């Protein structure tokens, strides 16, 4: 398959605008200015592009919610706060092909009529920030940003906002609060950002990968895009494979590729031939893990949802038989309790409690009834939190409990691990 998002990955020097232009960069933008903003939104709608940040919301539909009144100030925010453990796709794009993102953002801004856009980048991505800053400067110099871009009459300014290392700021409304200078905590919805977002103005928030898909859609047409992958969730997707495989890394594949193909064809199989596959986390740590016998699930939004998991950010974590699931659950849960923003009660007080119990079980101090307590606390947290962070923590733990309950019980009963 022709690579779209990762085409410049691993080609030294291709992050500069000169080599980018030689390779057809900003062609999508030139093409976009030939269309009216409404028709661009329609093209993105037709392409069937769905948000790559995790929720899979149709991008064109999201854009179409923005009021059409030209007198209202609108904003585009690019969510580059890539904090999900196991995810490193946006970093790949930003560090190796920053102009692809900038081009996508300009097209998106043109479509929704935003004169200002922000890239909210994770604070730890120092290298990525430098690359982006340089790229934005180059884009200004070449006239792709600033006043009257390419003579189209459309003016646009782009800023980078560095985050301060909070996972929650990847949640769109917390991201807006953070840009505005407040504590990174989610806002209440409604009103949705499309009506009242950044500084109370209509705002679109898209993931880096989503925006990077846009130039290709404009350049090659929505039909071409929707022909890749399954009908309901078309397009290329970057999978970040990590864990016990021979060749971990970024893989750009059409959606709908099965897990088995990904692991055994593309990644070269399990790291240690002697050990079989135990579980796979298909889409970042908040996605419930899949069993070895669920490997034939196609990796797309709907098939995974049907299995009770989700595609999320496409971070595939492969675990072989030597992995202790209690420890895995503890590590994942500790992450969530550390990253809980403190706004709502169940997440703030519930996730540390779960961590404490898991710690107890892992260190051999588990008590009878702890598994039931975990389950009961999961019920109490799930669906009652302010934002999906708490739900994510619960879903991950529930996935582990559902598939590997006996392993937890073994820890409690025998005060030692089952696998090591």
């Amino acid at each position: 398959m022709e690579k779209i998002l990762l085409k410049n990955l691993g080609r030294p020097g291709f992050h500069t605008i000169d080599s980018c232009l030689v390779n057809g960069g900003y062609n999508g933008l030139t093409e976009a200015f030939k269309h009216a903003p409404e028709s661009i939104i329609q093209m993105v709608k037709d392409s069937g592009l769905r948000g790559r940040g995790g929720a899979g919301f149709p991008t064109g539909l999201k854009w179409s919610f923005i009021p059409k009144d030209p007198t209202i100030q609108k904003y585009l925010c690019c969510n580059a706060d890539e904090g999900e453990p196991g995810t490193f796709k946006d970093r790949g794009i930003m560090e190796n092909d920053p102009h692809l993102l900038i081009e996508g953002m300009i097209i998106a801004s043109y479509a929704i009529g935003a004169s200002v856009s922000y890239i909210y980048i994770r604070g730890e991505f120092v290298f990525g920030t430098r690359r982006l800053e340089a790229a934005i400067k180059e884009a200004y110099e070449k006239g792709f940003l600033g006043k009257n871009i390419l003579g189209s009459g459309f003016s646009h300014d782009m800023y980078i906002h560095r985050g301060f290392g909070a996972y929650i700021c990847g949640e769109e409304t917390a991201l807006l609060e953070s840009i505005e200078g407040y504590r990174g905590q989610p806002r209440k919805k409604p009103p949705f950002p499309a009506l009242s977002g950044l500084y109370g103005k209509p705002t679109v928030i898209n993931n880096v990968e989503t925006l990077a898909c846009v130039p290709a859609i404009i350049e090659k047409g929505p039909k071409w895009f929707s022909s890749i992958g399954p009908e309901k969730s078309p397009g290329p997707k970057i999978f970040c494979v990590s864990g016990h495989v021979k060749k971990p890394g970024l893989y750009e594949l059409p959606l709908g590729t099965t897990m088995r193909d990904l692991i055994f064809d593309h990644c070269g199989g399990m790291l240690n031939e002697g050990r079989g596959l135990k579980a796979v986390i298909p889409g970042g740590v908040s996605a419930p893990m899949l069993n070895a016998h669920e490997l034939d699930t196609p990796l797309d939004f709907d098939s995974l949802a049907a299995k009770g998991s989700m595609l999320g950010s496409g971070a595939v974590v492969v675990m072989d038989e030597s992995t202790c699931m209690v420890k895995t659950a503890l590590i994942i849960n500790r992450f969530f309790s550390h990253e809980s923003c403190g706004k709502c009660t169940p997440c703030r007080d519930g996730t540390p409690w779960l961590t404490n119990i898991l710690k107890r079980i892992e260190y051999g101090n588990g008590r009878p009834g702890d598994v039931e307590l975990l389950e009961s606390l999961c019920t109490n947290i799930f669906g009652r939190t302010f934002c999906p962070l708490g739900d994510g923590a619960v879903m991950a733990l529930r996935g582990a409990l559902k598939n590997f309950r006996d392993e937890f019980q073994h820890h409690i009963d025998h005060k030692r691990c089952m696998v090591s």
Partner: protein
Amino acid sequence: MSTVKINGKEVTVKDGTLILDAARDAGFEIPTFCYQADLMGVGSCRMCLVEIEGQKKLQPSCITPVLHGMSIHTETPTVMSARASMLEFLLANHALDCPVCDKGGECELQDMVYKYGPHKGRHAEPKFKFQEKDYVLSPVIIKNSNRCVQCMKCVRVCGEVVGANVLGALGRGDHQEETSFLRSFLDCDQDGNCIEVCPVGCFMRLPYRYKTRPWDLKGKDTVCPYCATGCRMVIEERDGIVIRAKAQLGVGLNSETLCARGRFGFDFINSPERLTKPLVKRFGTLEPASWEEALGVIKDNFIAAGKNIGGIASARLTDEELYLFQKLFRSMLGSPNIDSSARWAPEAVEGFIKATGMDEGGASAFDCMESDTVLITGTHLSDENPVTDYIVRRISAGRAMNLVIASPRAMKLDSSASQIVRHNAAAEGHLLDAVTLSVYGGNVDKLRDVPGINRIKDARQDDLAGKAGCSADDIKAIARKLTGEGSVGLFAGTEFLRYPGSIPGLALLKNALKALGKKVTIIPVLDRANQRGAWEMGVHPGFGPGYSPVKERGMGCADMLEAASSGELQALYVVQSDIVAMHPDENFVRGALSGLKFLVVQDCFMSETARLANVVLPASSFAEKDGILTNQEGRAQIIRKLLPPPVKAKRDIDIIRAVGETFDRSFGPKNPVLVLDEIRKEVGMYGEVSLAFNNKRNVDNKLDLKEALVKPAGLAEGLNASGLETKLEPKTDEHPFLLATGNHLFHSGRLSRKSPTLIGLLKNAIVEISAEDASALGLMNGDKVRIKGRYYEAYATLHTRSGSKGGVAFIAENYDDVPVNRFFRRGEGVPRVSITKA
């Protein structure tokens, strides 16, 4: 309107009503921690989750508005289990030191766990502790973060209502702690609203710490005795000592808010300095005497003085006492010489009443804030009447309106204003004249016949603006806002009384706007709890009860003192007023009082005036009497007796009646209730005022009980408002600052100086100038400075305020160490002073 079903009961509510409000109106209880009607919803505590048919997840009812046709369930097993689980989570890291906690017994968390909660704990892990010991956050606040439920009400009330913005959250997740910046000592308004909104024992009163349990307290609903905002509060005592004042959610116009004075200034009641026995001067010293003896001396001397007698009553007394006081003078002693203020000239008072339309009945501050443009002038609202400031801030943030603030000094409320005008001190009149002229310029036809317009119509805009000290653009902008769409509200403060020359400007602006067909609502902003009541009860030389005309015009305070020094006035009866401290030119007052043959002072404390008296009568504080107070809006509110007066002290109404009874046994009525009946009969304004709202809760959170407002007097004529002028000392290089005065945020008159807590907040005098002036003089905030006037010099701490108009030095009238009235000299204008480093 939307019709929704709540637990099967169909209710129709306004669009956009929150599910929580709709359910509560329908009679269903939903517990909350983070919801408060006056604050922005955050939906973080998750206690109010309800089930909505067709939605997978439970929804927070405090931020979800109703939609037509919704079917809501608030009492299903899922909802109940959600509530219990939230409480379990809250308790997981709660300190559970209820036996020690000051909130124990009235804690919302306790109540809710008792009602909804899991009655068995499953959390067996060690709890996270923020700190081992409670830490002091300010002179009045002590904090224990281990008990926090993270409802953020303290942070929100501090930012949204008080406007101080000194609280925020540190840390993240379960380590999140609402406190000051890095737990530093707070330098804020010290109003303790964070304490009041805290549902648990996280923010606590320091003066109340470990004094009692809430169930030991006996409380009475009353009204704050300091400024004239008229905040309703409850004072509570244990074993005869008042130890707490608190505001109640949904009661009174202030709801849960109070200022530092109201919440912590009640403790003057318990002061050991209180007068407890009558004192009579024998051979130059005041010695204890019996009531009979004291009253006998008073009777003898009053008879000897005949009609050459005067009376000054404090504007903190109740309406009943003030009514009886004027009755004593007018019908018993036959003297028209009574006044209720040592500070304001009677003509200025009459002019102000007329200009603000106080004789046209009460006007609600909430109505005023409903106006499309609100102009605040002549008052430093944030310091003088803090709770009015809260109301203005809260309402102006919630709706689209123009808020214009015109003041020489910068204030906290500026951040809410859409336009701020800094004018010269004592130049309110010029500013308003300039605005009126600007309005007149565009509407000559309509305004040609407005009375008084001739005074300014030929003036030049630039001259007036120059005198006011602001730019013509500012003036035009105000005029544009005032003449724009919609109604106009005005808050007019005591500066108009202090500088009477400004009053015609206020009256003219009002008349001009009315002539344009606008609805104009004016709220007088006063600084004594019952100042308006005192005037309406007729304690004024120029008019009787209900602003009725008097047969014979008497002397005001200044005239009485003048007459005393010339020997014309022989006796003076002063009730709870400290004229030596309050009347401009202290030396003159002392001289005049020593010229009197006989001076009776009735007070709670040995004031400067009382030291000069021949007879001192021990009076009572607001906690020791029943009665009504009329606030600045004209809202009559009840205060109730909590304690008996100390030892042999008596209620003022009993003392005034006893003085009257020495002349005529039938002087009366005999008790406050009967006096009120007589007031209702005699004073038309009070005839139909409802007092039946004590403790009535405002379910709609409007906090506005209009039935308590006094009715129009129906007497348009009869007020004499002539001869109003402001005299200022000419500016010299030697004394560059014009001396402005008023009340400090923590103090009100001299009464609050007897409160140990308020003294703890601010003990020594401060003088305030603008930051620019200070840097020009090479002075810094906190420097010790020498303030030198032509007649007096004093030392105080410098306080600088950025954004204030230059050339003004502000010294509050509260300090006994720097009596500001010593700078004044009778017959001369407002003094100017110089400030140098001490």
